[in-house]
């Protein structure tokens, strides 16, 4: 059974680990000024101190269907989460050039021109890269991607360092609100929640009538009940409320189910959990 890193490290390594943990804490304080962060930067386990928070934040963004990319000064991709990787590999709008730099087709004034040139998304260092939001045209003709660029203040200033943070939003992602959720949250009936879901999808009331196979008068009755249950007065308000309250969380596909690996103490009762923890403490 493997124990925490510090239990196996020599004295010299332990000092180094402590130094690194201190550095990470300082960084975390800058961004999340809270004492509870100390828990994840537990010096007893280097594993949680280094890659776990990082991988976890990437995973969180995957859950939300947002692409996350870190580029260096020349626009080369250093890290991408799964959502962003999928976008880049699709080569629909965003792609990498031969130097592994992230490129996109930017919407310019000549949007009618079919030969829009591919442009590097992160401009080179000399031009500066402030905060920006870009609209990236897609080759498939779907609605453009939104890329939000933020510069990263880095301590070391070499060309290979992380320089810009990119968030990729895709407005084509379907909103997956389930009837069950609307029932749980607002106490809607099945038809009411179906109607609300269709409206949130951007359908007009007439479209909804056709899909649900109900008359317009019935749809209006359902809509009035939905208004009453959610506390809004207008259709537009309802769409905004539902999109903001559930839709944004449910945007895009959920990540592929992870293969379950049952931890030992779930199979053999809770007892097995303790020796590992005890070993860690004893070794330190």
């Amino acid at each position, binding site marked *: 059974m493997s124990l925490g890193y510090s239990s196996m490290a*020599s004295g010299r390594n332990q000092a180094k680990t402590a*130094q690194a943990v201190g550095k990470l804490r300082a960084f975390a304080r800058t961004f999340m000024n809270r004492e509870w962060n100390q828990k*994840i930067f537990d010096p007893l386990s280097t594993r949680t101190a280094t890659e776990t928070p990082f991988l976890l934040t990437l995973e969180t963004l995957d859950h939300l269907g947002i692409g996350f990319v870190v580029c260096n000064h020349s626009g080369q991709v250093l890290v991408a989460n799964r959502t962003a990787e999928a976008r880049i590999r699709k080569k629909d709008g965003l792609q990498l050039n031969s130097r*592994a730099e992230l490129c996109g087709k930017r919407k310019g*004034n000549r949007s009618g021109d079919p030969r829009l040139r591919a442009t590097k998304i992160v401009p080179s260092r000399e031009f500066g890269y402030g905060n920006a939001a870009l609209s990236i045209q897609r080759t498939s003709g779907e609605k453009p991607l939104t890329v939000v660029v933020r510069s990263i203040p880095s301590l070391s200033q070499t060309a290979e360092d992380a320089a810009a943070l990119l968030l990729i939003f895709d407005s084509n992602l379907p909103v997956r609100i389930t009837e069950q959720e609307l029932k749980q949250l607002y106490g809607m009936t099945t038809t009411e929640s179906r109607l609300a879901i269709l409206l949130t999808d951007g359908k007009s009331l007439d479209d909804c009538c056709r899909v649900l196979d109900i008359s317009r008068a019935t749809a209006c009755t359902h809509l009035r009940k939905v208004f009453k249950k959610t*506390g809004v007065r207008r259709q*537009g308000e309802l769409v905004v409320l539902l999109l903001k309250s559930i839709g944004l969380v449910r945007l895009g596909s959920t990540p592929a189910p992870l*293969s379950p690996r049952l931890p030992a103490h779930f199979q053999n009762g809770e007892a097995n959990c303790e020796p590992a923890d005890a070993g860690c403490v004893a070794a330190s």
Partner: protein
Amino acid sequence: MIVDTNVNARVQAALRPRLAVAKQARPIGGLLNVLEIAHTQVVRPDDSTISDLLASSFAALDLLIIGLAVCNISGQVLIANQTAQRILEKRDGLELDSDDVLCTVHDCTPSLAQLIQRAVRSALLGHGKLGDAMLSVPRRRGKRALNLLIRAASGAMEAECHANQPTALVLVVDSECPAAAALPELRQLYGLTSTEARLANLLMEGKTLAECGSQLGIRRSTVRMHLRNLFAKTGVCRQSELVVLLLKSIGLGPRVNEGDVRNTISQSLGQRTADVE
């Protein structure tokens, strides 16, 4: 320096899925490169690369208008982004108890702790998404309820699942929080004029055209003209479609500072007084 093979193997196991993806997509040379660096960093952790990456991934989470909290199995908050921290600081609906455990101010059934446990356990049994739960948390003073989505994180799958392992993800949505985008970014994105960008922001908040007109201090016919321009520039043909597009493509983040929102409001107020004069 002595490299511990055991630790090495564990780190490789943690990074393997991403490395595999990087190898398939050959062009992402940079990604592979840095993951290899990151991998050596864990053995030799006194370099700043991984902390830079960590800092930028936190910065990414802080840009979102959705509150995110990562909890362990007993509901203790391990990571929270700025939006979640603000919601927790207000102690309206959600709060932290003395042990940093996430809990609701008013009791609700099933409780938050039960839902977290259920999500983690169903993930362990391989049911995945079935354990996801939505919870509506009431707030005081007639404010709209906070909506919570509880989901198991991949930490729930770890073989060495100890008590402090991050296992659950709680997404908190405050539907009253304005989904406004920063004006310069809206203008840059679709090539909007400043009035069009302000109109877009007001529409994202669910305002009617009449309300937008009075807020911006312009006549109804002028609002309609701006709306037509917005349709043309974003490539949609209905108002609700426009709202959905804007919310999906920029409404989720980047978060606008309160100062910026105030700026927007004072700008529109300034415009109105100018019109009156």
